[in-house]
């Protein structure tokens, strides 16, 4: 059968056949539903040859991650480069970075859906999948960085024989709630949107076993008007639920630092500043993945330069927010009376032993987005790709810089001590990267990463029935 709204759901705009040019540019080529189905579903049923190899490769690298995790759990956190005073380093950096990346997906799917931004259509599932897998990576570290990870459940409130409960003033307790909620919601959101396309695959697939497989995962979807209606409503409600999470989750994560007394951590601007940073790095990651994907799958006519341009603008906005946050942070330290804070932000970071780190961060996060003022850069896939890479590097280094500078030289000069990562630290980072890619490639392999049904709807919306 062919999907398509018989009667538009409430949350869906009424057909507007005189859509503005920039909107039409989102779908330059006029295609029939059948053509769309053929083009997109074929890619799942007959994937490109390179895909298998890539999956195997990333899978192998993920094994390294597993090895490092096991080694750390059996030997102790001592195999990392951490020390006293620098008791947090790569682990927490990776956690904050990954969870931040996760934010773009939900932002795109939820916020832009509620704001009825049409350009989200071709990229939202892509972004949601990315979110999901990023949060999976993020979830590894809070567990792993604990000295006794096997007691992680003490952070969950339950009636224990000890008659004691978690300590709810600590932001770490809230991290557990935040991350798990975020994982659940983004999974549901992703899957709910996926169902119609799974159904389409069920009907489209040649072999019986495949049809069965997709049938099960489509949860018995039959594209009746009511089903569509329910799905759209549920989708909208989840969006409404996910939208606040975008703000809350990373605010809570930022509390891991903001509630500390350390100079450079003890600051009230962290929540907004972290959220902006999260979306910043998230969009960068979306682009990093999207640009090669659209090329390899030859989908430039569905994921157009128009899309890139819009996302580049998001980068520009969030990037400027970040830069502003940096300025405010330093300014406050300068005018504020706290000599330790001043020492940290005006001396240790820009001029201390970690100065190179600091200036790289400034260059990547504040410098590189400036290029995006130019339309040519925004619309050039190659430039964007390189820029997004620098931005992600910048955001990762920023987390690291934030953590280790404040820890390595806080109040008493006698305990000041630097930090040097070990091989395990590096391997864990690389491991999560490849594990992330591994999951992502699986996603490309087994489901259409462009929401076919929504695309058809958009098509109908922009041009009417072909």
């Amino acid at each position: 059968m062919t999907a398509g709204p018989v009667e538009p759901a409430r949350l869906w705009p009424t057909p507007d056949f005189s859509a503005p040019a920039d909107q039409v540019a989102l779908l330059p080529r006029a295609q029939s539903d059948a053509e769309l189905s053929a083009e997109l579903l074929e890619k799942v049923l007959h994937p490109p040859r390179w895909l298998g190899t890539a999956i195997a490769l990333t899978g192998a690298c993920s094994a390294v991650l597993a090895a490092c995790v096991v080694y750390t759990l059996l030997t102790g956190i001592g195999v990392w480069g951490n020390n006293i005073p620098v008791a947090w380093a790569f682990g927490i950096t990776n956690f904050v970075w990954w969870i931040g990346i996760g934010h773009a997906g939900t932002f795109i799917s939820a916020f832009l859906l509620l704001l009825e931004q049409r350009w989200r259509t071709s990229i939202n599932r892509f972004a949601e999948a990315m979110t999901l897998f990023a949060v999976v990576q993020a979830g590894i570290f809070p567990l792993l960085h604990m000295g006794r990870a096997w007691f992680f459940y003490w952070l969950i409130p339950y009636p224990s024989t000890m008659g004691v409960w978690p300590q709810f003033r600590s932001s770490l307790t809230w991290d557990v709630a935040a991350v798990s909620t975020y994982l659940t919601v983004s999974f549901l959101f992703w899957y709910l949107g996926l169902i119609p396309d799974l159904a389409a695959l069920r009907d489209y697939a040649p072999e019986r076993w495949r049809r069965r497989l997709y049938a099960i995962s489509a949860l018995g979807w039959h594209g009746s008007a009511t089903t569509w209606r329910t799905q759209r409503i549920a989708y909208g409600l989840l969006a409404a639920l996910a939208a606040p999470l975008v703000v809350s989750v990373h605010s809570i994560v930022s509390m891991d630092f903001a509630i500390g007394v350390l100079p450079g951590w003890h600051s009230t601007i962290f929540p907004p500043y972290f959220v902006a940073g999260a979306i910043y790095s998230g969009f960068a990651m979306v682009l990093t993945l999207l640009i090669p994907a659209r090329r390899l799958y030859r989908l430039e006519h569905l994921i157009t330069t128009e899309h890139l341009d819009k996302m580049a603008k998001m980068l520009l906005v969030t990037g400027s927010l970040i830069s502003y946050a940096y300025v405010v942070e330093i300014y406050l330290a300068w005018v504020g009376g706290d000599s330790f804070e001043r020492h940290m932000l005006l001396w240790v970071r820009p001029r201390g032993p970690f100065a190179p780190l600091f200036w790289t961060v400034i260059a990547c996060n504040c410098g590189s987005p400036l290029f995006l003022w130019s339309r040519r850069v925004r619309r050039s896939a190659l430039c964007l790709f390189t820029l997004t890479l620098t931005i992600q590097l910048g955001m990762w280094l920023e987390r690291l810089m934030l953590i280790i500078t404040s820890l390595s030289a806080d109040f008493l000069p006698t305990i000041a001590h630097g930090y040097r990562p070990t091989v395990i630290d590096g391997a864990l980072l690389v491991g999560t990267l490849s594990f992330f890619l591994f999951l992502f490639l699986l996603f490309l392999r087994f489901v259409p990463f462009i929401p076919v049904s929504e695309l058809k709807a958009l098509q109908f919306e922009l041009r009417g029935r072909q």
Partner: protein
Amino acid sequence: MTKQEGSSQAGEPLFPVWTNSVFRLALALTAAVPVSIPAVLWAWERTPYVTGIGIPRPQPVKFDHRHHVRDDGIDCIYCHADVERSASAGMPATSVCMGCHSQIWTESQELAPVRQAFFQGAPLVWNRVTRLPQFVFFNHSVHVNGGVGCVSCHGRVDDMPQVYAVASFTMEFCVDCHRAPEDRLRPLSQITNMTWSSERLGPESRARLGRELDAQPQTDCTTCHR
């Protein structure tokens, strides 16, 4: 219309009808898992298998507390002599057993291990019944001098042919009493009395007793964990 689409539409149903109910059941179960697993674990921790409550331990010598405590009326402290002055209650040295059993039951086969332990010097090896984790520092002396009777934690040992634990010494168990000690207190004269119960006292006399004994157990962590 492409070929596949035609085929898929014409094709017979993928699953028989009954699979629907299976499918729904499956969904229901998946939903139940997050609730049921913790519940099971919670219950498991409280089973006698884990806590060891009421499970007598075999001992090298068939020492019967019923006989010694109830019939002979030997006071707990006669054998567990350190209970009033030390953290550990103290297990009777073999010489203490021999104090009587060099006179009576000198031929009993039951007591062969005791005599052997005493004369050959190969010590008796008893099996521990009540056991605390290694990070818990319990002190008998402060409890028995503070008005907490043996029976409160060890139960009616005088009714035990073979000693078994009557309480799982979880933190809850200790903290419950530390938070509200009044009802568990008894006059120092009744510490080793297995049958005395605080019901005999009225609420006001219990309160008075509490004041006399100056019972203010701490609930600080370092009271037990150091």
